[in-house]
């Protein structure tokens, strides 16, 4: 490993926990990451000393909270290379994707229109589109992937012709595949489609400049990138935001309310109905500052080195099948696998006995699970606090599982 980030581990209190008397080896950051003290302190400080509802009060605490919230918006904008008024805070990537599906889709889609998805999507970028398709009469088309788990661009080119919406993942939460989203966005835009990117796995792990991707909307969550739960971001191109109706109505998203109708506040506030998760936004900004202090290039390189190491080591285990690209190029730090003779849930339980936390199941991507023919897989995923010793522990745990199940 050229990139040594082991000094960061001291920032994560949970990493000193023992699980079944063993030091915790946390390999499930793709589901949700752990939090550094810098994030916990930023939120704690706001709750303890500056807390008041945002925008509503002409008093000091409210003003301070409002400033902290808007400052968080600026931090997010800087982190993804955009301006603050193109950053709408949401409850997470799921609510961001729903707000596009409903807020844009319901008002622009009609009978027979095509929504192009991919077979790699997380349910969060499938189910909202299914619901909107049901309301509007639009139809869904799925982009397949190739035998080496890369996006099938030839098929995609055929599908996007005439499509109204193209909703694609920035990085698969099961395969680790990072599709060429910029290239795909360009192909889709050329045919006039709205391009939506589910970047829940991408933004935490790879430097992202939204202008380079060229999408219309991009969604991600805070909790997968060292931030708290309950906060996410919807970035949008301004002219597309203007085409979109608010998905939720309520306080703070209006400019005026009459008895029969209302007019909307400015963008992005019209997409933030109700008291927003402003403490969580401040936590997310602290997480982004933390990632910035490491450098996202370094974060990506570290992921890639651990992934390369893990792919090599896992290949040594007999009967183990990996579902995903065979090397770390254009691939994130997510490795899904099965083992002959041991079900993924049993693998997860046995590893937990060793203090190792991994995910087992369909990872909220059942269409993908059916496509690869593995209804359940075991999945490990890496982040900044993981070290090569975690891969050693994983491999030792898998050998122990084989022994316990008497697999030869």
């Amino acid at each position, binding site marked *: 490993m050229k990139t040594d980030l082991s000094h960061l581990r001291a920032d994560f209190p949970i990493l000193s926990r023992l699980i079944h008397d063993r030091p915790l080896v946390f390999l499930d950051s793709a589901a949700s990451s752990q939090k550094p003290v810098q994030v916990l302190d930023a939120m704690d400080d706001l709750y303890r000393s500056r807390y008041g509802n945002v925008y509503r009060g002409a008093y000091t605490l409210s003003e301070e909270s409002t400033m902290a919230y808007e400052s968080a918006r600026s931090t997010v904008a800087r982190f993804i290379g955009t301006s603050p008024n193109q950053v709408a805070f949401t409850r997470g990537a799921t609510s961001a994707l729903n707000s596009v599906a409903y807020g844009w889709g319901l008002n622009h889609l009609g009978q027979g229109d095509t929504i192009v998805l991919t077979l790699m999507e997380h349910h969060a970028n499938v189910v909202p589109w299914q619901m909107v398709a049901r309301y509007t009469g639009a139809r869904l088309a799925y982009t397949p992937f190739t035998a080496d788990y890369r996006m099938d661009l030839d098929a995609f080119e055929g599908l996007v012709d005439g499509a109204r919406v193209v909703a694609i993942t920035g990085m698969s939460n099961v395969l680790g595949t990072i599709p060429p989203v910029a290239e795909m966005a360009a192909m889709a835009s050329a045919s006039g489609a709205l391009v939506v990117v589910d970047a829940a796995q991408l933004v935490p792990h790879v430097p992202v400049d939204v202008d380079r991707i060229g999408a219309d909307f991009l969604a991600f969550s805070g909790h997968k990138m060292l931030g708290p739960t309950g906060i996410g971001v919807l970035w949008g191109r301004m002219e597309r935001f203007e085409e979109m109706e608010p998905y939720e109505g309520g306080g703070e998203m209006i400019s005026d309310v009459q008895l029969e109708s209302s007019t909307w506040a400015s963008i992005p506030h019209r997409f933030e109905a109700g008291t927003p998760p402003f403490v969580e936004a401040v936590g997310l900004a602290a997480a982004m500052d933390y990632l910035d202090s490491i450098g996202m290039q370094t974060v990506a390189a570290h992921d890639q080195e651990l992934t390369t190491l893990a792919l090599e080591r896992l290949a040594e285990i007999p009967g183990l099948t990996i579902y995903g690209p065979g090397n770390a190029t254009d691939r994130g730090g997510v490795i899904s696998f099965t083992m002959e003779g041991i*079900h993924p*849930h*049993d693998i997860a339980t046995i590893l937990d*006995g060793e203090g190792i936390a991994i995910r*087992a*199941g*369909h990872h909220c991507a059942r269409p993908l699970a059916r496509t690869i023919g593995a209804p359940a897989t075991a999945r490990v995923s890496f982040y900044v606090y993981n070290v090569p010793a975690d891969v050693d522990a994983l491999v030792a745990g898998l050998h122990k599982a084989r022994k*316990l*199940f008497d697999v030869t």
Partner: protein
Amino acid sequence: MSLEDLYRQVILDHYRSPRNQGHIDGCDAHGEGQNPLCGDEISLDLAINDDTITGVAITGQGCSISQASASMMSEAIKGKTLGEVTDLIHRFRRMMDVEQGDDGLDPARPGSVLGDLEALQGVRKFPVRIKCASLPWTTLEQALETR
């Protein structure tokens, strides 16, 4: 709680060589269960004569706990009357600690009357796996209710 308590040899044996696999043509009761969280699946066919379960056939896929539980269940209910099976279902629930009762069972070993199935008692120390062990039993209950 050690892993050896969860993965007893008898469980692994039933997982590797599940009993009563297959289907029954023209079965008298049929149930299907799945655990959407982890994708465990059970399909259960029963042949019932008078008041007695005379045939059991199971297909399914999933973890060792769900599939071993199904295999053991198939052996336990074959030849039993419906009343005895209902009693067995309650006792299994008691063993998994998902149901209370004052039926005089030893609280430390509520599974002691269940034969091979007692090997699954270790599962209750692993709360997330209780659903796996219980899946065949809820499927059985559903099959009997809807027949």
